[in-house]
């Protein structure tokens, strides 16, 4: 675990750096122009509605779900790749079966049009 202590130190340094730069900016910054300057930007008009009241495309959710599926796959592949020399042929065949199952799902998703944007 001693190897991880420097990472903790680095996180601490990063937090200190961020805090210091934001505090320095707070001390030095211009006072500002008042209320109208703090309206959300909308090409000069006062916004009629808030952005968070609007709905947006379902495809963003779809992409997120697909990402989770494929990223879990990556997590399985990492240790397999490192141990490949020991696993040899058995590991190779096993992982190829696993990837083949994933590819079947991938083709299904593609044919259903989930990968088409617009």
């Amino acid at each position, binding site marked *: 675990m*001693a*190897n*991880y*202590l*420097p*990472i903790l*130190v*680095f*996180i601490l*340094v*990063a*937090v200190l*750096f*961020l805090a210091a*730069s*934001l505090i*320095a*900016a*707070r001390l*030095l*910054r*211009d*006072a*500002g122009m008042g*209320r109208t300057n*703090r*309206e*959300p*930007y*909308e090409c000069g008009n006062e*916004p009629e509605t*808030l*952005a*968070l009241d*609007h709905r*947006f495309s379902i*495809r*963003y959710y779809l*992409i*997120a779900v*697909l*990402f989770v599926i*494929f*990223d879990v796959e*990556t997590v399985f*592949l*990492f240790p*397999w*790749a*490192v141990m*490949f*020399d020991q696993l*040899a042929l058995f590991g*190779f065949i096993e992982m*190829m079966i696993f*990837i083949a199952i994933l*590819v079947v799902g*991938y083709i299904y998703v*593609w044919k259903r049009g989930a990968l088409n*944007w617009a």
Partner: protein
Amino acid sequence: MMESVLELLGPELYYGALTPALKIAVLLFVGILPVITYLVLAERKILGYIQVRLGPNRVGPWGLLQPIADVMKLLVKEDVIPNRAIRWAFILAPCLVVGPAFVIFAVIPVGPPAAEPGGLDLFITDVNVGLLFIVAMATIAVYGLIIGGWSSNSKFSLLGGLRSAAQMISYEVPQGFALVAALLLAGSMSMVGIVEAQKAAGVWFVFPQFLGFFIYFVAGVAESNRNPFDLPEAESELVAGYHTEYSGMRFALFFLGEYANMIVISAVAVTLYFGGWYRPFPNVEALSFLDFPFLPAGLVAVFWFAVKVFAFLFVYIWFRGTFPRYRFDQLMDLGWKWMIPLALLNIFLTALFKLVL
């Protein structure tokens, strides 16, 4: 004096916390931050020459003081928090982009481990899951962008944040697959181990892993939201994307995060595919003059690492001067329909190649 400090703290804290803290300070304030500030100037200069103009040339000779003027300007600018924003998230978001990008440097080796015990390792730490740590840390930036876009409560920001989140997670999949193929060759996730494996193999992994490197780097450009994949901040349609509402120092932090991410992607590419801190062809005796034997070995190692990273940074800027921006559906198609099958094929071929040999 150092002995008494060592006695006071005990060896664990001395070698685990104080020595790394000094190295981190040097890395951050002599390495990363100056490189980022002058990378911005270099980018503007190179883009200028690509477009047959001069670039910044008013502040100081050859515009050399321009970055300092920029930083001063950003520090004293009004720091707007929109009145309908979610305040705590608005403040947190830029920190989530910059912080992890810095922390990744903890596991990137700029030079070899110390030759004799007690000497100076030219990296902050070497953990046995180094690459996994980098992938994990790099993912946190997605939260920064989407929280920034969401909490601004502005329509441009929201759309920009969603876009960048979709883009970054889409390209993370092929990037992860490309890294798996490199790991197959290296047989280790430690960054030092990967570099040593390349020296042992006698060849940079970019040669057997050309396809993997190509996928990694294209996905890396997309991950760092740079041209031609800079849709999240496409000026022509989204004003500035997720950072539309940001100004002053908080905007500067987003900016810093983007450039720090460029350096991270370049540094990982150098470590994984281009032999890290070793000179080109480290096993060929005839080229040993490239080790500059009259200089300290550590300095030469850092020199070669820096040269390779700067070459990548130049490619980034070159891209920006050359390619027009992708359309969003093209971007998604490239990621999901081309890069993922190619990356899976690459894993298959690499594993087969290792099995046969």
